[in-house]
């Protein structure tokens, strides 16, 4: 069982739909991340939040919009996605330490299919 909970587990949406992915952790972690993973490929970093503020945006298209309402929640809002956006979307969290990167705890992911 993972301590990072992602919902929904599966999502099928059309290119004109608007949907949101949700991620929650109660480990007191102050860093949260979104990754995108295609089949048989490594996870690719999309966004990093530290202390609820967006700190890294890896040139992700604006059709993906992250939001961090509080220290336990991370959302990814989706709008007008393309078929190539179909992938596994992973949320992760870690402790925040200025001296050393901390291990990341991943959720099970949301498997997204764009029709």
């Amino acid at each position, binding site marked *: 069982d*993972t301590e990072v909970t992602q919902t929904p587990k599966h999502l099928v949406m059309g290119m004109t739909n608007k949907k949101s992915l949700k991620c929650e952790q109660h480990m007191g972690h102050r860093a949260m991340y979104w990754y995108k993973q295609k089949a048989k490929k490594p996870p690719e970093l999309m966004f990093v939040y530290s202390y609820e503020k967006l700190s890294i945006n890896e040139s992700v298209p604006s059709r993906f919009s992250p939001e961090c309402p509080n220290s336990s929640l991370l959302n990814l809002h989706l709008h007008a996605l393309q078929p190539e956006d179909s992938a596994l979307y992973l949320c992760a969290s870690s402790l925040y330490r200025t001296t050393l990167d901390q291990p990341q705890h*991943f959720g099970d992911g949301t498997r997204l299919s764009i029709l």
Partner: protein
Amino acid sequence: GQQVMQIPQYQHVQEGEDFTTYCNSSTTLSNIQWYKQRPGGHPVFLIQLVKSGEVKKQKRLTFQFGEAKKNSSLHITATQTTDVGTYFCAGTPYSGGGADGLTFGKGTHLIIQP
């Protein structure tokens, strides 16, 4: 930007044989982390190496960090069917510390034949 290369991409072994995956970075790393992802699962943290030349062991797994902190390896002794999965090395493209997203190697897919 930082690139993390990992070989081999696929490794087929007979159960009981040893397995090694190698990771090489184009830049010096502040630290390196290793993750395992089972088929259909999510990445799970295995270990973090910080010091130059560091060697750490977890049962049948041995992790090494190169002297120059640009390469690393994971060695599994006497593989078991539970070792099946993809092993990723991961480094941070920034200075290290704080909240830096990970740059993953391409991963090595370990396939074990009983």
